């Protein structure tokens, strides 16, 4: 998992997170909103202050996510073998669940798929992903 992401991790009221997610494009180039739960949002590639319309919100910088961008063919090869659940068809899309036996977050844009995993699982996941990256070369 070659990339480490600086991000902002927010736990707040769902309405407040809805607004941030909707306006994610305004937060800067490359910011990817990953909605883990109705009350939990991670803004990948985002650092610095952010307005959250919830006075009790928990907002912390979070550099613990690592990831790997896969092209469409590699992602299809990998997910077909290692993902037992239906991936969304629309793009862009966020999904999460077990892949290769480990909990990951998936971000599908028009061309590529970003696989994100917690640092504490990243090395093990990388070992499971490696054969597919090798096959794609």
């Amino acid at each position, binding site marked *: 998992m070659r990339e480490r992401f600086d991000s902002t*991790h927010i*736990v707040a009221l769902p309405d407040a997170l809805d607004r941030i997610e909707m306006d994610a494009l305004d937060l800067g180039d490359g910011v990817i909103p990953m909605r883990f739960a109705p009350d939990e949002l991670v803004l990948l590639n985002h650092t610095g202050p952010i307005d959250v319309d919830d006075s*009790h919100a928990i907002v912390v910088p979070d*550099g*613990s996510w690592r990831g790997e961008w896969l092209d469409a063919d590699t992602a299809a090869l990998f997910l077909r073998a290692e993902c*037992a659940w239906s991936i969304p068809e629309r793009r862009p899309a966020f999904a999460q669940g077990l892949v290769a036996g480990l909990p990951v977050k998936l971000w599908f844009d028009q061309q590529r798929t970003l696989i994100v995993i917690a640092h504490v699982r990243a090395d093990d996941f990388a070992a*499971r992903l490696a054969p597919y990256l090798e096959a794609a070369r």
Partner: protein
Amino acid sequence: MAGSTFSYEGTAIDAQDGDSVLLALLRSGRRPTEGGPLCLAGDCPNCLCTADGVSYVRACQTAATGVTDVAPHPTTGEPPLPPFDETAVDITVDRRQADVVVIGHGRSGTAAAEDARAEGRAVEVVDAGEGVEAIGIYVGPHVVARTPNGTREIHAESVVVATGSSEIQPVVPGSGLAGIYTPRAARTVLDAGIELGTIVAVGDVDDETLSAASLDGVVAGELVRFEPAAGSSNVGAVVTKTADGEIATPCDTVIVGLGRAPRDMLARMAGPGEATIVGSAATAAPLPQCPNDGVVCPCSNVTMQQLDDVYDRGFTHIELLKRSTLAGTGTCQGGVCLPYLRSFLADRGESIQPAFTARPVARQLTLAEIGAGAHTSTAARTALDGLHRKLGAQMDRMGGWWRPWTYGDPDAEYAAVREAVSLCDVSTLGLMTISGPDAEATLQRLYPTDVSTIRAGRSRYVLMLDERGYVFDDGMIARRDDGTFLLTFTSGGASMAEMWIRDWSAGWGHDIRLLNQTFSTGAINVTGPRATELLTRAGITDPPPWLGHGKYEVAGIPCTIFRLSFTGEVSYELHHPLERSVELWNALSELGADLGCRPHGLETLLRLRLEKGHIIVGQDTDYDSTPRRLRHEWAVNFNSGEFIGRHAVLRTDRIPLDKQLLGLRFDGPPPIEGAVIWSGDEYAGAITSAAWSPSVEAGIALAWVYEVDGGFPTEVRATGPDGEPITGTVTSLPFFDPEGARARA
């Protein structure tokens, strides 16, 4: 023309193109089992063999091409396990999603697939003849098939089973002889050009087969038995009963036509409503005539006599027949015996009972196929994992994490903590932030302590109790400000605790925010009499007081520092962004080098905390550990209002104490953890933690000590590490620095 060759008991067997292993063997005058009717359709167990080390393989369904070694299935006992093969290939898994999976690509399956596609549904068709053989239907539904390259797993909304019908096999005396074929099997063998000698037919054999067989005779009458050829396990005659009595017809081969039954093994694997069965697989066929004698279940070798015996003992349901005789539990899962079990019960006046469930898998799989796509569970790795390994740490898994057990010199690690300063990676501790209008109210109910009295910047040790008042975790509560708290938990306890907090707060209708930071935060414990000096060098001139906490920058890295102690020495837990763990560790190591700073692993930490009598939940606690049994009554405040477990603790406090977690002191090395302790001849409990204490210069232990003869023993006996009896004395805790002066220094 020979297309391939395989070895069979030391003999090279030539196979023609398209041959199955069975056809090639029959062509050479052999067969992999002693006998029994052959169906050549994979429905019976009568052609099992061991192919290339894999036992229970159906020779009729296995292409000869690619097989190098075939062995006969043993006539008694089990085939040997294959040797461990280090060169075993990886088996790939092809995972697919579909609206409908159709199993079987015959007429009915094709029609079902077309109908589904016409409705706009995504369809996957699986057919053994096309190289994709369904071997199981699991809950979901979820169809697993084997392919030439591996396995295919298809998750679907529905499954259509169109597997056709199987031929009913004869159950009469002698049906275990070789040379008996069903009509379809006979055609396949004859089409392959295999010589079958003198052939006769019995029962309802179709014209196509009769014509292909160039029969030497069609035997009239009801099938009674088969008789062996002299000195042979091959059939030598078939005996039928006619109005004129029994007639024995000499032959080398008998084709027996007894009709068909639904081939429904896969359908019987599916849960209720999960599969639609179509075509012949769904067609109720007439039950065969109930046999009087013979082997009804060739897989489990169950005879009609055995069925009679258990029926007479009251096993009158098909499920009971199955369980009491094991009929239907073999590799064909009732493919042969199920029609007969039903006709047996019908013959005795029972209702025709539904078929029993079939269990996956339908074909023998290799371990590689079974394990395809599965991964071993992993232990999490802290951000310092690589660094520990570079330092030569012996790593071990504990609490769901890889942790350094020792860096090679536990005595030096221990000395660093007691005499200088040491670092320990405690990133594995559970950590959460909770805020919100009801955060304090939630914590007040979750913990048996008065959270309202924890001031900002202060923290408190807490137990987590379940509804029965049993301890299932412990940790710290630290108040950041009016509405925000940091919570810590045991390593491995955070996930359960998070669910616990979310479930209860939701049930109470509380408005909270909760962030589990266990996997996103690193933590390093700086501990030892020179810990404060090391922090000063790292820029901290006003560290938090005992049980205080606050935000700091340590060597330029933002940290939340907790002042507490698990080791019994001055300790600071530095919680920091995980991505800066290595930087922080290296900075502290460098700054503390001339102070004697070195890391310590879990072995040392466990010894240190034992000297202080600190418990480890899960190791020193049991499934029924109340605060009183743990001698942690001091951590429960009944004046704090309602909390989970309060009433259970109050109730159990009124019951006489039957066991306690107590400290034991031994003059020499202590017993091993888990060792039983005795008071006289009475069982008196077990050791939960034990170590040699350099500071106390004695073996020390925590143990569950049971009440014996109306009191708690003050001395117990155990078996020492060398097998000799040793005596332990119950000792007050902690073993070391009972005033706690060192930790608060």
